């Protein structure tokens, strides 16, 4: 389970760093940073993030799941994906 968490977080970080922050600098993004508050992702970026989650993790996102608690940081996204995969949502 620990390795699944690590692998999920690594993939999400890589996607955010490459596509929204355009950097390899791992220090530029903390896992708890709010995408909205820090201006990392905007409204259209959110659509790209959702497409990534769907393609990479084969996870569908319902409209009412598009909320900060599920998507507004690396930790939130990872937790959301893993919970969906284990069928707890």
């Amino acid at each position, binding site marked *: 389970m620990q390795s699944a968490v690590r692998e999920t977080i690594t993939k999400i970080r890589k996607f955010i760093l490459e596509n929204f922050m*355009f950097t390899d600098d791992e220090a530029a993004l903390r896992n708890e940073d709010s995408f909205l508050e820090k201006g990392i992702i905007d409204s259209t970026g959110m659509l790209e993030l959702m497409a990534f989650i769907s393609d990479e993790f084969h996870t569908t996102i319902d*409209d009412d799941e598009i909320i*900060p608690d599920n998507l507004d940081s690396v930790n939130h996204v990872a937790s959301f994906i893993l919970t969906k995969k284990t069928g707890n949502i």
Partner: protein
Amino acid sequence: MGIHQYLIESAERYPDRQAIVEVHKSRTYRELCADAKKIAAWLFSESIAPGDRVGILMDDPAEYVASYFGILMAGAVVVALNTQTTSRTLKEVINDAEISILVTQFKFVRYLTYIADGIPSLRAISVHGFSSPPPSLLGIKLTDSAYVYDESYLQNKEMLAFLGGSDMDIAQIVYTSGTSGKPKGVVLQHGNLMANTCSTIRYLQLTPDERHMVVLPFFYSFGNSVMLTHIAAGATMIVHQSVMYPKVVLDIMQRENVTAISGVPSTFAMLFSTPLVKRYSFPCMRYFAQAGGPLSPKYAMEMKNTFPEVDIYIMYGQTEASPRLSYLHPDDFYRKPGSIGRAIPGVTLKLLDTKGRPVQAGDVGEIVACGQNIMQGYWKDPGRTAMVLRKEGLWTGDLAKMDEEGHLYIVGRKSEMIKSGAHRIAPKEIEEIMLEHPAVKAAAVFGVADEILGEIIVACIITKTGGDCDEKALFLHCKQNLPGFKVPKHICFVENFPTTGNGKIDKNSLKNSSAELLKG
């Protein structure tokens, strides 16, 4: 009278009415006006003089509005700064406007640390939300806003007797993208903003009972107009300035019984394209107001079908017009699809050819506007002012046709300006930044149609080696030097640019081929 009187009068008439409601806090008119007066008093204590420019760099709605009116009460000029910014952009605007005092939040101070030695006009900053000792900013005095809100300032009798400028004084300089790539400051007098505010209140029939959902930032001219009209009407603004999470906004709208919402096309595309919206009911909703570019007919019809009882106002304007110029009456929504309607009260709109002659009915001409809402000119730029403010009025750069009933239909723009979401973006500014990258030989930037944003930014690049270069490095270069909304969504590498008959880059051809490429 100045526009700050709107807040003073609403606080006298409706002291206990909510002026601003946010998720975790709200302000009554009495509280908001008191805060504005304290900010004015602090500015006096900092020896502000009439006409001095004071910047606002804030995304905290209540603090923003209090600061806006406080600055005007002190007789100074508001320069509202886009919070999606870079140190480079801030430096350019602070220097151009010669801002002497800035009100901001702690999280934005980081932008200033890199440029403190290059902004000589800035001498004092009020910082909201100090969470740690501030960085040292060479010779610039930093004050915690908690101290600014000190009641003792209000003892300043000189300030209370003065309370702001009048209709002929400059109230605000609004920075907008210029076609040359350098930002231009639109100079608006109190009288310009008051004329437009009164007209907008009239055609939208605003009353103090309004509860308006505000999702647009106040530093945009559209958001500024929403703020002024609702403060003037003594109405309530429910504020959450992001549609990134549509459910959050829809929940607020339902919970707060909002009566209206204003937005640009992407606002409505984000909120109403989701099936989720059908689960909500907004029994108090009176109207949706849309401006900032054409709304996709698909979304317009979806909105109307989902909420048939809600009026839809299609509006058109420009920052240079404070900003409203025309609206389509909701009764004409089905009858005049694609129209931006007719001039608002107090405004005259004509369609003229390049020589200033009225065009024949049905022919294309440039929209030229007259009215008390039209700007005084561009800040310190008589050359650019003379190009658009001519004896016929304000030449908007927008090309349109008029039908037999006087309804206008935009058919194009004279400039290459890109409209993406709520932003107007000059391709030249992005091209100049891309040319600073050592691998880039030539750059052509343009907008390509997008269902959500209206347009997205695409850059075509010729490299010095003739091939591709590190795309990621190019994106990073843009990200470091441009606000996020100006960073191209796509970069294409080409060997050469197609040209027009007179040797200019044929951007239409590039646009078409890129649109095809992106579709594929």
